[in-house]
């Protein structure tokens, strides 16, 4: 009995297929036969009929058929199912024997061949004596057969052959050996399949017919057997629905059997077989729920059928196998397309199988721990004459025995002993691990990470029991971190203690220390051996862990001493962020920033959670700038051996639950100004450098795998921070400050700005910077950087210029920021600056004063660079606005000007500046298209404008003729020289240029102007002379009329039509006689040009005065 004794027999697990034997084929020497055979057995895909073929010699002996029983009356069955039965029907007894014979219809020796064939058929029939196996003949022919009915010879000879061989016509086939061999073969095998089905159908009927002879008292076993057989035949027949039905009946019958200790195994074995078949068929029919329900029922029924208590392990082994094979079936069904879910997947069955395997191991441990003297019994009670059992599930020493009591109690004892001895040699751990890893694979697939971890823990523990510590440790280490992050300390504790044993037994010093540190630490529920760490740090082999295999302990001890003696093997660095060690650490800088002239202060808080005091030998902090590390080091001064002796270094001992604070101080280097100093790690050394030591390393200065949660809890906590006695600190209140900035010394100077905002556009705006030193010592190398603060709008940079020289106006070559204006040593004084803002808007100006000064910190002289920044926001506004307009000599607004007719250009200068502005000068620079009539002189020179005051001036201009009637011409530029009138500083004159607007110039065909006195008197003649000037090269017809007026009487032509020659002037003289005093409207002169109808009288009237002042005469 091998360990595989519980495995299901392969003939049970395979898919039953109809068995057809082929005879008469010489596959070794005959190429044609070989080809036929290959066509049968290769490429058997799912679309071909399920037949298993076998080539047998013509005179093959088939299993003998027992003589048929006519009555079951005196028959007592010896068991449920013979071990050979399934194999017999799968591989030995064919449903059909096919005889291949080479014979053409027109064979010259037809008669001889026919009788030879008949003989061969007869031989086969004889060897199948008593069986219902069918026989068929296939004639291998060289010629392609004619269509049926055409070859008369063939049909005649076929019937003759059938007669000779005693065959029905359906059992004779022809196989022409031509090109389409595979096609013929497929047709042949379909025909064979039909024959086979008939055979199995008959077999089922035959078995069924036995039923009426059976009685319930003596033939209970046979009921099960027959049902099973019918199910099996149905499967061979590929009738799975009926097979399932038969198996289900068989299953219920098997549980109706009278069960007792002697036949328990047989019943369970058969129940297992039938259950397997049912589940398999259910999965095949795609009814997985039926399969699961059947399996549950099966387990519930069989769970309590333990059988012999001395062989309890057999029951658990069997149970384990049941679960395993169901898991296999389930998994196979999934591979074929079934979908499983998280709560119902094969993993659970493998897990349960593993659980029973563990039970089995435990029971085997209890039942099979015989004294060393007890050996394997001789003669071997498990030996059988045939080497195998007759019936499934029976005991080899009492085969066929079906009564309640064993026939021979001595034999029984020997048998049980033999089984127990065998069980002792079974490698249980291997079985368990294989099952567990199957389950792990399944749970991984179905999203059960915790189940997976749990199984991996079990695997690890099993490896530990199997003494494969490396694998055990690997698995445990892998899952440990999951449990740590999930904060299931109770589970972590148990895993850790197993891991600790493993590492001890393997002599893995570092792992051993890590695990023991975590076990001693906080969070874990058990109080572990407390001296372990202290002992660790001695250069000795630690005490063995309890419950370890003594042999392994010995090995481990030698391993340990080997390792210890090796140099360089006794220092370990443990990165704590992956663990929860028993020492906690927090490091912080006292402030987020330190000035360069004060010492940087760093506090390290250390606390132990283990139950006993711990002493350490070194505490060191490493910072991002390693040069400071030397200042942050605490070392045990006594380099002596004995660590347990109370040393003078009292503060290097950690008392459980108390927080210790270590302070470090150092002076930062001047190069580090503006840089960040970070705590990269804090290291705590336990043990001695001379012996073994462990270096705990807190990256970033604090924190292990549990601290983030603890910090969160502490922050939520309602607990009052009770004031602890001197020097004691509440751990939770210590906050982390793992980096600090070194910033420059606070400058002791003052920077003052004097100016008069806002600045005016284009002005040289003066700002006076006053620097006052309040330093104790000389401030050296004072440098001023002044100008536009960087980082503002790019347009501002272009429109702002800074200079120290205020006498001339800046241009674009001047920078927006004037850097490093050297001011020498300690010269508190003023510095005027001029700013030229071309555009309006606000801008931020920066004044940066840098200097160096020497200082003394902690007895060290350092030169500190200090700087002070001052910024000011400067608003720039437009100083004044210039409005320009063209007006006629009558101060009427002009849309356009007329050639050679004088007009006025008027400027209005409106001050917008909050400060008084002095207009130094103004000047018009005319374009070539304009001429001044008189000498244009500034009329605003020396005028001072207060806020919102306005200054105006005007210039009389004239346009020379233009080419083509109308055109737009440029007028020129207007210059205003001005300056801010300020008592504060000397200001320079600024010249602002204003571009004069363009104006439309138009030719006019007729120019009219009037000559009249400046005033008239009532009832005194007022002579008015109108001049009409033809400005075209054409003769013009002009119609002139004067409208009557109430205020005037007049003499002259009232209405006239005349011609004016080109370039000439016509005078019209009127004598007006005013009747009323005051401003009077002159009689309106209507002029119409017949040639230019678009020039209206209205337009021309613009050139003429419309009113006159009439004085009263006395």
């Amino acid at each position, binding site marked *: 009995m091998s360990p595989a004794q519980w495995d299901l027999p392969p003939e049970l697990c395979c898919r039953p297929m109809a068995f057809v034997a082929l005879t008469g084929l010489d596959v070794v020497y005959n190429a044609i036969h070989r080809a036929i055979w290959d066509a049968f057995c290769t490429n058997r895909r799912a679309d071909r009929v399920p037949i298993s073929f076998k080539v047998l010699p013509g005179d093959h002996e088939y299993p003998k058929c027992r003589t048929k029983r006519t009555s079951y009356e005196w028959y007592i069955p010896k068991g449920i199912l013979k071990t050979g039965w399934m194999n017999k029907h799968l591989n030995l007894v064919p449903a059909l024997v096919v005889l291949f014979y080479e014979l053409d219809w027109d064979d010259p020796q037809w008669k001889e061949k026919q009788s030879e064939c008949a003989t061969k058929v007869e031989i086969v029939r004889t060897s199948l004596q008593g069986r219902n196996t069918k026989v068929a003949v296939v004639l291998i022919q060289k010629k392609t057969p004619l269509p049926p009915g055409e070859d008369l010879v063939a049909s005649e000879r076929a019937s003759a052959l059938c007669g000779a061989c005693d065959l029905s016509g359906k059992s004779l086939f022809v196989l022409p050996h031509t090109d389409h061999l595979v096609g013929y073969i497929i047709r042949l095998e379909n025909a064979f399949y039909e024959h086979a089905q008939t055979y199995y159908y008959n077999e089922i009927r035959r078995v069924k017919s036995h039923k009426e002879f059976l009685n319930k008292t003596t033939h209970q076993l046979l009921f099960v057997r027959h049902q099973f057989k019918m199910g099996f035949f149905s499967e061979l027949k590929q009738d799975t629905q009926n097979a399932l039905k038969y198996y289900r009946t068989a299953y219920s019958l098997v549980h109706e059997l009278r069960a007792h200790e002697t036949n328990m195994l047989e019943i369970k074995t058969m129940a297992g077989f039938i259950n397997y078949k049912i589940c398999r068929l259910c999965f095949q029919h795609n009814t997985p729920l039926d399969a699961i329900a059947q399996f549950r029922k099966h*387990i519930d029924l069989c*769970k309590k059928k333990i059988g012999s208590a001395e062989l309890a392990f057999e029951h658990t082994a069997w149970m384990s196998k049941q679960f395993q094979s169901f898991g296999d079936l389930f998994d196979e069904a999934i591979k074929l397309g079934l979908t499983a879910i*998280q*709560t119902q997947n094969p993993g*659970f069955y493998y897990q*349960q199988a593993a*659980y029973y395997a563990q039970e089995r191991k435990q029971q085997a441990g209890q039942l099979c721990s015989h004294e060393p003297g007890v050996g394997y019994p001789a003669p071997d009670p498990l030996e059988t004459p045939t080497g195998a059992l007759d019936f499934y599930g029976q005991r080899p020493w009492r085969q066929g025995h079906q009564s309640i009591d064993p026939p021979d109690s001595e034999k029984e004892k020997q048998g049980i002993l033999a089984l127990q001895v065998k069980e002792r040699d079974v490698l249980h751990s291997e079985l368990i691990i294989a099952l567990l890893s199957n389950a792990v694979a399944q749970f991984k697939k179905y*999203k*059960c*990470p*915790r*189940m997976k971890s*749990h199984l991996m*823990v079990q695997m690890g523990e099993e490896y530990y029991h199997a003494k494969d510590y490396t694998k055990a440790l690997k698995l445990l280490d892998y899952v440990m971190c999951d449990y740590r992050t*999930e*904060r*299931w300390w*109770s*589970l972590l504790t*148990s895993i850790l203690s197993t891991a600790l044993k493993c590492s001890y037994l393997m002599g893995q010093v570092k792992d051993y220390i890590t695990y023991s540190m975590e076990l001693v630490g906080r969070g874990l529920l058990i109080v572990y051996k407390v001296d372990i760490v202290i002992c660790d740090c001695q250069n000795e082999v630690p005490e063995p862990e309890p419950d370890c295999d003594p042999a392994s302990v010995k090995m481990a001890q030698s391993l340990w001493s080997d390792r210890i003696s090796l140099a360089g093997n006794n220092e370990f660095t443990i990165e704590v962020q992956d663990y929860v060690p028993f020492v906690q650490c927090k490091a912080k800088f006292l402030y987020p920033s330190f000035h360069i002239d004060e010492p940087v202060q760093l506090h390290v808080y250390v606390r132990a959670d283990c139950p006993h005091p711990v002493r350490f030998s070194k505490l060191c902090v490493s910072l991002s700038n390693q040069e400071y590390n030397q200042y942050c080091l605490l070392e045990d001064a006594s380099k002596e051996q004995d660590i347990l002796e109370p040393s003078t270094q009292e503060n290097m001992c950690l008392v459980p639950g108390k927080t210790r604070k270590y302070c470090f101080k150092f002076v930062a280097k001047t190069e580090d100004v503006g840089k960040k100093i970070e705590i990269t790690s804090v290291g705590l050394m336990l043990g001695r450098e001379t012996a073994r030591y462990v270096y705990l390393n807190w990256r970033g200065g604090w924190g292990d795998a549990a601290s983030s*949660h603890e910090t*969160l*809890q502490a922050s*939520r*906590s*309602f*607990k009052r921070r009770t004031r602890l006695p001197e020097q004691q600190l509440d751990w939770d209140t210590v906050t982390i400050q793992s980096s600090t900035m070194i910033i420059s010394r606070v400058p002791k100077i003052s920077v003052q700005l004097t100016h008069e905002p806002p600045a005016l556009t284009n002005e040289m705006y003066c700002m006076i910077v006053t620097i006052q030193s309040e330093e104790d010592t000389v401030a050296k190398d004072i440098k001023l950087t002044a100008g536009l603060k960087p980082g503002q709008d790019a347009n501002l940079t272009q429109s702002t210029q800074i200079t120290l020289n205020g006498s001339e106006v800046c241009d674009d070559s001047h920078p927006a920021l004037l850097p490093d204006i050297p001011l020498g040593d300690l010269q508190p004084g003023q510095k005027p600056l001029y700013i030229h803002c071309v555009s309006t808007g606000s801008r931020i100006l920066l004044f940066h004063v840098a200097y160096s000064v020497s200082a003394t910190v902690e007895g060290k002289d350092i030169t500190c660079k200090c700087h002070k920044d001052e910024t000011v926001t400067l608003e720039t506004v437009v100083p004044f606005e210039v409005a320009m307009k063209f007006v006629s000599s009558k101060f009427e607004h002009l849309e356009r000007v007329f050639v050679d007719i004088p007009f006025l250009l008027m400027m209005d200068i409106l001050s917008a500046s909050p400060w008084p502005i002095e207009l130094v000068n103004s000047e018009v620079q005319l374009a070539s298209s304009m001429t001044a009539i008189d000498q244009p002189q500034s009329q605003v020179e020396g005028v001072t404008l207060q806020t919102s005051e306005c200054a105006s001036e005007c210039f009389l201009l004239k346009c020379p003729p233009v080419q083509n009637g109308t055109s737009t011409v440029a007028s020129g530029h207007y210059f205003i020289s001005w300056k801010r009138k300020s008592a504060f500083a000397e200001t320079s004159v600024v010249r602002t240029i204003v571009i004069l607007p363009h104006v439309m110039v138009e030719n006019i065909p007729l120019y009219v102007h009037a000559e009249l006195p400046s005033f008239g008197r009532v009832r005194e003649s007022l002579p008015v002379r109108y001049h009409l000037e033809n400005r075209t090269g054409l003769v013009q017809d002009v119609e002139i009329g004067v409208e009557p007026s109430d205020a005037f009487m007049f003499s002259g032509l009232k209405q006239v039509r005349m011609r004016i020659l080109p370039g000439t002037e016509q005078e019209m003289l009127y004598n007006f006689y005013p009747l009323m005093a005051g401003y009077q409207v002159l009689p309106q002169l209507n002029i119409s040009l017949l040639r230019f109808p678009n020039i209206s009288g209205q337009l021309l009237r613009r050139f003429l005065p419309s009113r006159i002042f009439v004085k009263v005469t006395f």
Partner: protein
Amino acid sequence: FLICVAIRANYPLYIRSVPTQGELKFHYTVHTSLDVVEEKISGVGKALADQRELYLGLLYPTEDYKVYGYVTNSKVKFVIVVDSSNTSLRDNEIRSMFRKLHNSFTDVMCNPFYNPGDPIQSKAFDSIVSTMMVQAC
């Protein structure tokens, strides 16, 4: 036997089992059952977020015991494990047990001196659990 647990953020706030031997095994069982709870929460969350049934029912079958789950709206999980042979406890009884647990848990949370996330050390909660255990066994 019966054990019950209150779990927050997947670590136990309260875990108690009767009898106490083999405790570790039950801890593992509870821990692994969280797989199913998480899966159920994420599955339900999609469909009906508001009217979620707090009682999750039987989480997964094992040979020897039944594991039931219950999740509050703030994702605090309760797990009860009972012996499979204990037929006196049907779905309704389990449901009412969970409801009692939930009520008691709410009381614990209402305690201003309780720091959410700390292990539960309330005597009232303890006694509720004890009475349930007595009833069940």
